[in-house]
């Protein structure tokens, strides 16, 4: 049914294949902007880091700030909370990894590795999203006096480590730094 050109079958086939391949490249190229537009845009990325003044947070108090559309817990822990967390044997931890972006990926989930570090062990900064399915855990609640997620019953200790319930990982710690004694830069 097509116009057959018996004398030059190879040239014709080549033409069809070349056209088809160029068409495929064109389709892929045309599709890219439509996928590209789904990525976070420039204004979203520009808000990727925030500065938080923590000078007014006394021991035993917390603030929740919004960072990248999620809550971040900043808690000035009491000495007792720090001691409790330090006393937990590593073997009791469900997730033994620190989950701290300021630490090496495989760092152990010791209390020090979860906190803001030497001299600032009282500070803990965590993304307030349960690692199970993303609900916001309640502070100073649950079986371990840390955080408790009401959605599916995950219990975190005072260092934000998962101890009981369906959540697979410790609460994540974002990239952050104290740019001065009173200002934390998150992101």
């Amino acid at each position, binding site marked *: 049914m097509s116009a*057959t050109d018996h004398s030059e079958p190879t040239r014709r086939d080549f*033409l069809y294949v070349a056209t088809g391949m*160029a068409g495929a490249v064109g389709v892929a190229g045309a599709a890219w902007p439509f996928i590209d537009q789904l990525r976070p845009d*420039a204004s979203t990325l*520009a808000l990727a880091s925030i500065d938080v003044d923590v000078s007014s947070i006394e021991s035993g108090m917390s603030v929740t700030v919004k960072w990248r559309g999620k809550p971040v817990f900043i808690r000035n822990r009491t000495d007792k909370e720090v001691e409790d967390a330090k006393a937990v044997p590593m073997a009791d931890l469900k997730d033994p990894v620190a989950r701290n972006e300021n630490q090496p990926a495989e760092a152990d989930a010791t209390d020090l590795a979860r906190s803001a570090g030497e001299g600032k062990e009282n500070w803990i900064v965590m993304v307030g999203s349960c690692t199970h399915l993303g609900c916001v855990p309640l502070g100073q609640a649950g079986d371990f006096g840390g955080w408790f997620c009401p959605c599916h019953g995950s219990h975190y200790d005072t260092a934000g480590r998962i101890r009981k319930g369906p959540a697979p990982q410790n609460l994540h710690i974002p990239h952050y730094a104290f740019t001065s004694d009173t200002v934390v830069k998150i992101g």
Partner: protein
Amino acid sequence: MHSILKGLAALGLVLAAGAAGAQEHAAEGDHAEGGTPHYPLVAPVEQDWSFAGPFGTYDIGQLQRGLKVYRESCAACHSMRLVPFRSLEALGYNEAQVRTIAAEYTIVDGPNASGDMFERPGVPSDRFPSPFPNAEAAASANNGAAPPDFSLIAKARTVTRGFPTFVFDIFTQYAEGGPDYIYGLLTGYTEAPASFELQPGTHYNPHFINGAAFSMPPPLQNDQIEYDDDTPRTVDNYARDVAAFLMWAAEPHLEARKKTGFVVMIFLVLFSGLVYLTKRKIWGAVAH
């Protein structure tokens, strides 16, 4: 197909002749009736811009100078509420320099924990703020004419080109009507003719798009702004540089657009050629 093409060609000729004649006639009509004069009185003159044409790119040095003119002259009245400081990285500034520029502006933010609005230095995600708290304040401080925002001014002020020029513009890719207009306006203040009654608080400028009396006083003088390079400090250069900067502010992705366009055009032309050859092979044996 031939008859259609012939018809189209004839149509084009008739139209060109007819419309040109009609326009002349209509123009005469305007004068005869002494109807509403058409502004601007002086049409913008096409200037040379580095960003014109299919391979146009912004001149970074010019944009930096234009930013300086904007900040030291225009920004006293004109905001750029759609242009964030972070986008200045496209002008060749690094992150620290952008932070410094942003911090020189005061941003009203809030409410804070006690419910009050407060002022803070700008950060890169902020936009060029207005020096006035709201449009009403801007208008009352400027004889009732609020200074327009500058984010899109280079695309929002284009003088109609008329037939047949606009047809040629398709082929010359003329898209610099905005900067041409801004340059003409800033360098276009002159003495009002004796017959023209200038209202107090206005300034005669035949390049102004909405009349001949312009409420903005001449904003630029020679040697007013220090350039970091050795470009002569003249009103002409200030006007040219700030017009280029405003084009960038209005169309920040112009370079990406033209670069992508070149690849797309090459592809479409080559691919059309391939499809044409395929089509010819398929139709080769069929008389049609």
